[in-house]
């Protein structure tokens, strides 16, 4: 018995709140720049139409997160280490390429978020992005992001404001309820792409690596997992609830007015019923802090995972000469992310959207790795997946691959 179990078993209901509290905050902040923009665009462009997807995706998301956490608790190892030990070098190389691509794409989106937020304050991206790159890099190398983390988390939880804004906007709740349960598809490329992006931002591949390594680092054992899993599950559900409110708000405020979200300023207008003139400032603060936080966490996640897979030395307390690849990797991801945004003439919102579509397309392949591992009795013992877990996860995999194939086909044939 370790200290955490002793503490947790002692006080029932309060312990549960203590456990799920951080999960909810983390999840609301987990809606990073890619998430905010994707949900905003979905609401503004298609109204309530996409809400049913959010409902369908919530169990999948919770289940995938739970699987990742369970793998960490049972094996005490990260996802990439398990991939390496189960599949060998070649598939690992592929998986790590996927992770790096997903991660780099999202990091680019985070810098796009920083640039967009600062533009709302009237600062040019040529000034804000280089400074942000240096700040983020310093946060990472000095390991001080853990200190700043809480501040950023608190600031980015302003997105909870969407919940209030949704009520103030007085949506037609009947229509909202119907949209949640009645599936509707618009047969255009844009809609399919957005659906993939919605999946990619909700069940982001890098998040599975992060959840698992968090569980491993905390030293959570299988016994403790019984309670800790609720943290992960509740966090996942909370994140999706907030995402739904973002869609409802933008669908109520922006969609009827015919406003297409092509810039952060337009996305911010959805908060006008709540914050009035301060909508832009509120939106910008949330976007900025969520983006900075994610821009520090993402490259680090990739770096840790890849080094774990290939047995390279890693850790923030290792110098450049001790762990050149570890330090090089996150530096490379941060620099690339910032450099791409500095290219002139980019539309920041499209960058954020595209990165999430990339995430969505890569997701099924990493999920396949996860499914094989989590169902391997030699690795998971009696903690292999139950039937419901497998059903939801495989459905997600099949649906996303089908959507990707559909999008490819439509693009090639010029339909929609």
């Amino acid at each position, binding site marked *: 018995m370790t200290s955490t179990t002793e503490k947790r078993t002692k006080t029932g209901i309060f312990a549960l709140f203590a456990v799920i509290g951080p999960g909810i905050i983390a999840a609301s902040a987990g809606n990073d720049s890619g998430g905010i923009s994707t949900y905003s665009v979905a609401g503004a462009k298609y109204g309530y139409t996409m809400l049913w997807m959010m409902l369908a995706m919530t169990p999948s998301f919770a289940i995938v997160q739970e699987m990742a956490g369970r793998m960490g608790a049972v094996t005490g*190892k990260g996802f990439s280490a398990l991939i390496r030990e189960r599949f060998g070098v070649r598939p690992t190389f592929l998986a790590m390429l996927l992770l790096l691509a997903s991660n780099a794409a999202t990091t680019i989106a985070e810098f796009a978020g920083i640039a967009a937020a600062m533009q709302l304050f009237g600062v040019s991206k040529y000034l804000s992005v280089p400074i942000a790159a240096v700040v983020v890099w310093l946060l990472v190398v000095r390991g001080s992001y853990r200190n700043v983390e809480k501040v950023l988390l608190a600031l980015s939880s302003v997105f909870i404001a969407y919940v209030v804004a949704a009520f103030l906007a007085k949506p037609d709740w009947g229509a909202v309820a119907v949209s949640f349960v009645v599936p509707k598809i618009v047969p255009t490329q844009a809609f399919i792409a957005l659906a993939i992006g919605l999946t990619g931002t909700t069940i982001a591949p890098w998040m599975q690596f992060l959840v698992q390594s968090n569980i491993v680092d905390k030293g959570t054992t299988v016994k403790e997992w019984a309670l800790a899993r609720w943290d992960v599950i509740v966090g996942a559900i909370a994140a999706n609830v907030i995402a739904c409110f973002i869609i409802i708000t933008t669908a109520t405020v922006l969609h009827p007015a015919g406003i297409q979200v092509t810039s952060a300023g337009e996305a911010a207008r959805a908060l006008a019923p709540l914050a009035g003139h301060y909508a832009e400032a509120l939106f910008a603060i949330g976007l900025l802090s969520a983006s900075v936080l994610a821009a520090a966490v993402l490259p680090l996640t990739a770096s840790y995972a890849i080094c774990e897979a290939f047995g390279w030395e890693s850790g923030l307390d290792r*110098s450049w000469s001790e762990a050149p690849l570890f330090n090089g990797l996150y530096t490379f991801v941060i620099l690339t992310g910032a450099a791409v945004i500095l290219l002139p003439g980019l539309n920041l919102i499209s960058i954020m959207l595209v990165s999430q579509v990339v995430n969505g397309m890569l997701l099924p392949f990493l999920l396949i790795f996860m499914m094989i591992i989590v169902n391997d009795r030699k690795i998971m013992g009696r903690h292999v997946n139950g039937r419901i877990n497998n059903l939801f996860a495989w459905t997600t995999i099949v649906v996303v691959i089908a959507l990707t194939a559909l999008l490819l086909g439509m693009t090639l044939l010029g339909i929609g």
Partner: protein
Amino acid sequence: MFYLTRMLGRPVVDAAGETIGRISDVAIATREVFPRVTSLAFLGPEKTPFMLSWRKFVSAIDDERVTLNVTRDALRFSYLQPDEILLARDLLNQQIVDTQGMKVVRVNDLKLSESRNQLRLLGAEVGIRGILRGIHPALERMAERILRLFGAELPEDLIAWNYMDLLDRDLSHVQLSVTHKRLHELHPADIADVLEQLSPAQRAKIFEHLDNSQAADTISELEDAFQADVIGDLGSQRASDILEIMDPDDAADIIGDLPYDKAEALLHLMGVEESGAVRSLLGYREKTAGGIMTPEVTTVAAGMTVQQVIDHLRGEAAENESIYYLYVTDEDDHLDGVISLRDLVVSDPETLVADIVKKDVITAYVEDDQEDVAETMSKYDLLAMPVVDENNKLLGIVTVDDALDVLEEESAEDLELATGQRAKAGITGIWRWVSRNGWLVVWSILAVAAAATSSATLVLLLAATVILRIAEDMASHALSRVIEAEDEEEKLPAWRRFAGDALAGVGLGLIVGLVTAAIAWLVSSEPGVGIPGVGLAPRFEVAVAVGLVYALSVLLLSLASTVIARVAERIAGRGHRVSGMVVTVSLMVVGAVSFAGFAYIAYKIVPTLSVVG
């Protein structure tokens, strides 16, 4: 030479030339330094696994296949023996501890050598080479060829069997070779180094192998940040047993870092005496003499004879942390003096302690700063220093190992203060660069401020940064020439130095010119580059002009630095002090002025060119 990754999947052919399966694994006997391959595992039709003795049935092995010496019907299958392990299952892709390099690594491949049909394991390949080969052998060859172009080799990182310890599979029941070095047989400090690289679950596994006294030593050697975690993760009973064995001062440090509940639980489980010692230490403030001292002091009374003291040492005092100094106290524990072990050994057994005691003892007050204590100890070369309260009552001693830790810790902290950088993060090199180039930061802030007037100024100021950096570099060279003025023969003749600088200048000009051209082509959609107040200028000419401006500025700087160095040498020769600041600043001014001058000339000339061209 064979590599396991290349052997797996190769066909297994029987004496009749018929393929009966594909290699899936090989087993080795673990008892040797270079273990023999003892069994061959292969997958037959429909993936049925088989295993057979290598010695009995394998007649030949080459890059293509394994050939057996009998036909399929004559094969007798076997099972994995208790002292055998499977290379692909137990080693390949797994994490192992390199007990020689004290690192945790992952096995990318296994290298085997063949002699008379006998395969032996040479070692585990843990370097980049194995990864490349694993992805595709062609990739390895390509990397090798590319590196050879640069005169480098692709190194092979091999760890021999006797320097491996496996983390995952519990091999405690497997008899390893006599020379085998297991993790838990290493020095506690080395074990601690390895443990810090592992995840909590893996750490817990290792601790299962360590006995309590090894575990206590290892935990003492861990970085502070890990200590409380490790103790916290152990079971309470085991944790309290280990804490009992540790020196009370170390134990108090760890318990002080634990959450209150856990700390109390552990103290309750510990023996009365040990927990008392720890509790009394917990009352002292951190970073003071009281915080780092141990209460285990060897005290003697003034009235004892030398023989009595020696008997006392052999008896109850034998377990104390330090016995090099014996402290003489009265019945109320007031410190009266000190005798050293040396005094004791060279004295006649009948001598009274009172006759050899030294009265002037160097002591520390319990509230003294730990750094002062350590400084004093190193100044007087003390192995231990007594700690007293305001009434001169002896409370404990600070031993030399704790003092060393303090010095290490404080120097790290001082570095932190000086550079604003945690020494642990290990990027001191980069930070030194940043702090040395502080003017760059000031410069860029100024540049941004100036940019408020016009964006052209910003571009110009930022462009001049490179020149200023070069000026600073040349200044430091010039200064080092002045400082090492006596090494006349090592000095390069002026013309060669100048030629070198000229070459560097031209090179820089070329690079900057190319970059400018690239930017001009990429950014500007118009046929030329917009120059404020003039209009459009042709891209090519602009690039050449920018390159020339840089090249000429560097040349002029080089000339100036030669002159300034001469002047500085002359001044230094007359016995005056040369201010590095003045040299640097004057070179920077020369650099800035020449850069601005050349830029102005270019600004005037380029537009006229565009008219001509």
